[in-house]
């Protein structure tokens, strides 16, 4: 039988852990709400840009602008891997990394841009593949970071030999479910929107400049949305992970308490027997 004092210390430490995991759950819940609010706020902006791009694309089927080109030019691909900065969020990062590895086996020449510390750490050994790193910003999400990433990938796509930019990230489906998505962001494929009005616009200064600026903004907002989705998914995953951790701790405390009581009773019984047999011996 384990030492009573040992069991008692163990119970105390598990209770402490449970308190921490419970608090982490609460923190994640509030961060999740914030992320969801951001997603909702970004929606009209993204939709409007999408509509405009789609409109331009429908009207100018002959456009040769590389941002909108459908024809694949030859060249390597760039994969942007969006992971989290912090751990303790279940299989969130493991899934992303596995998908990325599968992607890399299919496209052995693809290059990587790592967003989030966990991905950077994992791919540390493939340093010849990594062409960009962005870490430690999920705490204070702002549009500036996504702009930085977007201008980097746009530049890589326009000026260098890369043919395609793909982002692998966790989509926020619900608190308990994240979907892994590999989304192509360049060349731009606009989503189909429902009520599209085809109006003949006058473009000033000219169409190409408009397309270029619109395209860049579209990439910006696509990345921004992806980062928001990923951060919401991360908080959701952490919430679920912490909830089950709290549950497990409660269960563990229950079993430990049983063991503790049993040990305590055994000790008492032993003492009574000792006293009783001592009294018997005196008679």
């Amino acid at each position: 039988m384990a030492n009573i004092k040992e069991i008692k210390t163990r119970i105390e430490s598990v209770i402490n852990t449970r308190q921490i995991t419970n608090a982490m759950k609460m923190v994640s819940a509030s961060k999740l709400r914030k992320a969801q609010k951001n997603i909702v706020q970004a929606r009209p902006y993204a939709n409007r840009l999408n509509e405009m791009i789609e409109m331009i694309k429908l009207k100018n089927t002959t456009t040769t602008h590389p941002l909108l080109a459908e024809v694949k030019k030859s060249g390597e691909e760039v994969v942007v891997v969006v992971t989290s900065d912090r751990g303790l969020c279940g299989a969130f990062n493991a899934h992303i990394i596995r998908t990325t590895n599968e992607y890399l086996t299919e496209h052995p020449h693809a290059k990587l841009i790592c967003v989030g510390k966990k991905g950077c750490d994992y791919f540390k050994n493939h340093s010849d593949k990594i062409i960009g790193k962005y870490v430690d910003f999920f705490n204070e999400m702002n549009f500036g970071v996504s702009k930085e990433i977007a201008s980097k990938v746009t530049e890589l796509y326009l000026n260098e030999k890369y043919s395609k930019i793909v982002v692998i990230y966790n989509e926020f489906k619900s608190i308990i479910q994240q979907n892994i998505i590999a989304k192509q962001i360049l060349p731009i494929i606009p989503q189909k929107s429902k009520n599209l009005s085809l109006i003949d616009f006058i473009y000033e200064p000219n169409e190409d400049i408009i397309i270029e600026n619109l395209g860049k903004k579209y990439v910006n907002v696509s990345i921004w949305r992806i980062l928001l989705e990923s951060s919401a998914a991360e908080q959701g995953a952490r919430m679920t992970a912490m909830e089950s951790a709290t549950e497990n701790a409660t269960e563990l405390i229950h079993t430990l308490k049983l063991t503790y009581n049993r040990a305590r009773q055994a000790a008492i019984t032993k003492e009574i027997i000792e006293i009783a047999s001592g009294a018997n011996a005196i008679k």
Partner: protein
Amino acid sequence: MDKILLEVIQPTQTEISLECDHVIVPGVDGDFGVDFNHTSFVTLIRPGILRVYQGENLVEYAIHEGFVTVEDNKIVIICETIESVKNLDVARAKSAKERAEKRLKSSSEKIDYRRAEASLKRAIARLAICK
């Protein structure tokens, strides 16, 4: 007089939507005014002041870069940041202007001139509406 609808859409904040009579937008090729029944039109915005006239009332915003589309008496402005006079931090704009000017004057190679120029233009637009 018939009204036109002005919408401003930003990625990180709630949108602005208001009815007005006349809007002056800082386009890349110069400021232009939009009245009722303006032709359908797309252009880029340069850093400057967006003036919105509602009857006698004039509201001014500092705007940095973005797009404007005019269609069917609706002006939609898509931009990353827009600031009304109320929310403007004058001291910060002033110091940003000084910083940008200093950077543009110095001749070190490390300086991103385009960025410094852009931030100078932004600061000037901000300060212009404070006066």
